[in-house]
């Protein structure tokens, strides 16, 4: 039989338990994947186009939608690009609060990825645990921002709310809980012989390929490339904080999961430093603070909740171009805004980590086994709605 006769074309998704919103066109020969073409589908199409007709502040919730588990990164990157155009720098306290939320978000985004990965290789326990342990972090973020997932917390010039009362203690409690919890994960999931057998040596991405394909985030670092935007081009409060860039050498599915686990520990470290070092002061740029009517300003100073000055509704951004990048949970998020001085951007371009990481999928599954498809898919922490913008 010729190879073409032996091949079976299997359409995995979009109505498949493991495919998310994506469609995978797999050609398999027996149990070996000959070719796998990911089709990213249509979920949040036209975010970039919609941004051209929305006002600058309205775009914040819009760009958050696609990356549902990791909204702070998009929020922050967009606002940083706008701030570059406006030529303002948020006050230090706001920088620290941004970092705090970004790290809380990074942890629960990693838990999300690990949970989905767990259920993809058949461990419903890992799934339940990860999603359960994600909850305290979401609660923290909720208390800080008022929303569970799409926070819209970061606004041009600062953040929307100050730290709630007694927040430090709650954070410390959650961090201690997480630290006590991690050994359980190792006992039942990461050090499980079946997990190891399923993940080790599966979907190996070499250092050279990782660089060549433009992979970002934990997937890149799992192949031994110590690239992290937080270090390469520091933003928010990161230059003043002490943390390491996590790398693993193997580049296989297990290394990718391990990078996430170790990054969670690193994030805990960062959050503790943030709470220790956070300076006092305003949380919104002085220029905008002044625009709040005096009677409201008093209330803002008392409660720590910003009442937006009128200028925000029709925020005009000077003409020009700006690019901002941040390190999200899944990788590098880039926003490029071209402004012509009107109330909406002339053009907005977002580069999401999942879109860059999905290229890997085709690359890694060549010659893998059918059962490796979900194992690799999960280890990439790929989030279909994010790829499609």
């Amino acid at each position: 039989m010729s190879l073409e006769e032996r091949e079976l074309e299997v359409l995995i998704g979009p109505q498949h338990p493991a495919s998310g919103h994506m469609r995978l066109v797999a050609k398999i020969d027996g149990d070996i994947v000959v070719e796998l073409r990911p089709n990213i589908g249509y979920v949040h199409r036209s975010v970039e186009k919609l941004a051209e007709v929305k006002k600058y502040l309205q775009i914040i919730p819009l760009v958050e939608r696609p990356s549902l588990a990791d909204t702070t990164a998009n929020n922050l990157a967009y606002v940083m690009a706008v701030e570059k155009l406006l030529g303002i720098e948020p006050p230090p306290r706001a920088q620290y609060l941004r970092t705090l939320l970004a790290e809380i978000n990074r942890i629960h985004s990693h838990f999300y990825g690990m949970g989905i990965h767990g259920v993809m290789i058949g461990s419903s326990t890992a799934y339940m645990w990860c999603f359960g342990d994600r909850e305290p972090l979401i609660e923290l973020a909720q208390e800080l921002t008022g929303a569970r997932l799409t926070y819209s917390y970061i606004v041009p010039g600062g953040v929307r709310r100050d730290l709630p009362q007694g927040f430090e203690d709650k954070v410390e409690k959650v961090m201690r809980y997480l630290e006590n919890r991690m050994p359980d994960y190792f006992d039942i999931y990461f050090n499980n012989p079946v997990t190891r057998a399923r993940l080790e040596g599966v979907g190996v991405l070499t250092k050279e390929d990782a660089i060549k394909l433009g992979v970002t985030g934990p997937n890149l670092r799992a192949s031994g490339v110590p690239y992290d935007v937080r270090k390469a081009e520091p933003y928010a409060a990161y230059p003043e904080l002490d943390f390491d860039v996590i790398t693993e050498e193997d580049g296989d599915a297990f290394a990718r999961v391990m990078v996430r686990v170790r990054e969670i520990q690193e994030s805990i470290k960062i959050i503790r430093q943030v709470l220790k070092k956070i300076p006092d002061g305003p949380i919104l740029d002085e220029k905008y603070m002044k625009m709040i009517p005096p009677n409201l300003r008093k209330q803002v100073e008392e409660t720590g909740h910003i009442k937006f000055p009128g200028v925000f509704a029709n925020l005009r951004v000077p003409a020009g171009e700006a690019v901002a990048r941040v390190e999200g949970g899944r990788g590098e998020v880039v926003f490029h805004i071209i402004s012509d001085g009107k109330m909406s951007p002339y053009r907005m371009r977002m580069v999401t980590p999942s879109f860059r990481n999905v290229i890997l999928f085709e690359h890694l599954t060549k010659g893998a086994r059918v059962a490796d498809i979900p194992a690799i898919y999960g280890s990439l922490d790929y989030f279909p709605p994010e790829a499609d913008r």
Partner: protein
Amino acid sequence: MQDLLSVIFEPYVFVPLIFPGITVAFLLLLVIIWLERKIAAKVQLRYGPLYVLKPLGGAIQMVADLLRYLFQEPIIPKTVDKLAFIMTPALLFGAAYLPTIAIPVSPTFYAFRSDLSLLIVLALSTLAPIFTVVMGWASNNKFSLIGGVREGYIVVSYEIPMFLSALSIAILYGSLDLVEIAEAQKGIWGIFLNPVAAITMLVLMYMSTSKFPFEIPEAESEIVAGAYTEYSGILYGLVMGASYVKLYVLSLVFTILFLGGWNPIPGFMANDPLLPGVLLFIKAFIIIVIGAFLRAVYPRFRIDQAMDLGWKTMLPLSIISIFISLVEIMIMGGA
């Protein structure tokens, strides 16, 4: 009434229909799936089934599920091979429960006693996978086909070592008669005489009934539900129940081979038809519960890894277990 009772307690009727037959198998189905969900929930820090019969923690959840399956419309796709598609679930379930006819309940209570009852049970228990393969083919769906083929692969890799480890016990006791084997364990149980055989048989038992980590033929995240993808309604209820019934049957066999069957039973109870059966059932139930617990602990193996385990680890181990039996016979001076 008296006549009716005596008919029911006639071993020819009682063993296939009540214990260990179809009635207990159904009751067990109701309990074990609930228990599996409860155990997994315990590990996963959640409640599991809760609302059906609340005081007992949702204990009859499966009755509700069964009713739902019963009244759900069984959708039969146009392109399937209709006869094979509809017949196989019933045949699969039947074949899974069929071996119970040769399983004795006590030294004196059995449907029929044969010199070869162990062989009969093992042979009948290997009928079921054929229907899974047929099911995968008849569904006319690529995922089903892959699932069916996987079942075929798995069968060849568990069957031979499982037979060898069961037979090593037969060698040890010099008999293929389940009654004799159980009776021979009055003193020391088979698991202590030949632990290697016990471990291989236990692992392969879970492999043959698609328990985690061997839930490969119906791997949800890879091939949807494998051979069962196209099934719905009561047809799906039957195919899903079949693997649990098979596990029940194999657990009974495992209990008789390695856990002393109904032993230790006090002498005055030996002629009672029910009590030895209860003891047998409790032991088998523990084996099933261990299988249910595995769900919470293990992810799923890949097909090639499971086959590796079958051929490269379990087969040599089962051959070693035969040698262990032979050596023990030599030491003990012949059976």
